[in-house]
């Protein structure tokens, strides 16, 4: 068994530098690598390009990095919950590349799985396809999209073992699995880190081969963006 455990978030993020491209898992605030984001804030690295479906909220998630102006460019599909983001974007301080959500997921998966590019129908005929190759297959038009290239991938899982195997919970799974192994170095933080052999090999969502470093996360806030409930009868 190849051991991937590191002592803490600082060790896990060793090598992160100004100007790097970083993938971050999560959908909204669900399943985001909270510990790694805090460490990026602490490190103060800047001029980052961040690939993440959303941009957090003003005071949590990637919003924390936006506040400190650590992000130069965001590649996301939806950024509607963040006023500071909108301000920086409309003022031109922040470069934003909006990408259809399924395309974003597949650009990660392509990087993980060694596909240089793929054809998707999403965005055909829209400004998203401007400057990109388009092509017809079986009477339908597709856009050629390229795999992402990133330095670090920061993901969050529910359980993980020493070998780097990961299991996600509920919809906190989202982009995390496809980002594993999609960057030069993949760092996974988990709510529960267990010895190798404790996870059922059949139930593993992402094999450890896609994970470079894994650490036991702490103090998860798991903030809820839209607390919707119903009354008991």
């Amino acid at each position, binding site marked *: 068994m190849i051991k991937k455990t590191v002592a803490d978030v600082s060790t896990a993020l060793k090598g992160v530098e100004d100007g790097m491209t970083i993938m971050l898992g999560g959908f909204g605030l*669900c399943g985001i690598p909270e510990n790694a984001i805090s460490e990026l804030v602490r490190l103060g690295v800047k001029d980052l390009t961040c690939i993440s479906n959303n941009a957090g909220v003003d005071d949590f998630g990637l919003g924390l990095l936006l506040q400190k102006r650590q992000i130069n460019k965001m590649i996301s599909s*939806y950024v509607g919950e963040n006023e500071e983001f909108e301000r920086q974007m409309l003022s031109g301080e922040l470069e934003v590349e*909006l990408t259809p959500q*399924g395309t974003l997921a*597949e650009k990660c998966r392509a990087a993980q799985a060694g596909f240089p590019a793929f054809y998707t129908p999403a965005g055909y005929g*829209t400004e998203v396809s401007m400057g990109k190759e388009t092509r017809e297959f079986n009477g339908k038009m597709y856009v050629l999209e390229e795999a992402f290239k990133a330095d670090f991938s920061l993901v969050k899982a529910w359980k993980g073992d020493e070998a780097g195997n990961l299991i996600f919970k509920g919809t906190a799974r989202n982009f995390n699995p496809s980002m594993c192994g999609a960057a030069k170095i993949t760092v996974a933080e988990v709510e529960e880190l267990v010895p190798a052999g404790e996870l059922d090999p059949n139930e593993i969502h992402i094999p450890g081969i896609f994970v470079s470093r894994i650490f036991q996360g702490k103090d998860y806030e798991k903030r*809820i*963006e839209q607390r*919707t409930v119903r*009354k008991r009868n």
Partner: protein
Amino acid sequence: MLDKNGIAKRIAKEVKDGYYVNLGIGIPTLVANFVRDDISVEFQSENGVLGMGPFPFEGEEDADIINAGKQTITTLPGASFFDSALSFGMIRGQHVDLTILGAMEVAENGDIANWKIPGKMVKGMGGAMDLVASAENIIVAMMHTNRAGESKLLKRCTLPLTGVQCVKKIVTNLAVLEVTPEGFKLLERAPGVSVEDIKQATEGSLIVEGNIPEMQL
């Protein structure tokens, strides 16, 4: 004239037994409340869940279980969780039978715009571009006119497009319309709304053939 719940109620009639359905944010989300109890339907949310149930009871919210609108949800028996790549595989692979979403503008050729107002509002397309480019069956749920009273059913969209020639049906506060090669074909009027009212509120070509029935809700 319908309110948002009325639009949702009318659209719910388009949901057939055995359908997997993706509901967008806003009015589409309300559709789930009006689907008949005697048919089997599963709701997909593109962030990675199939088989969504109602909102959780107070105190039972789980931050790890949300829909694409970031709302806390529950799941029903038979539900499953999956990653974003597989989720859009469902959508792109046309396994989802019906997509219901909102729009800022729809053109008479089926083009739709709903993600950006240049220089003003740029929230992003989220999964909408994947959904409209992939789905066989797309229904738009929206008000017939914007706040300034201008038609949202146009000859051509003026805003940046989300997808081209993809909308099949539109349900507004005034009418049910089908997108045809000749333009918006009026199928039904909302209660108390005349064909003339609809003509006034529609900038794109409106096709009115024969007697237009009032919606049955």
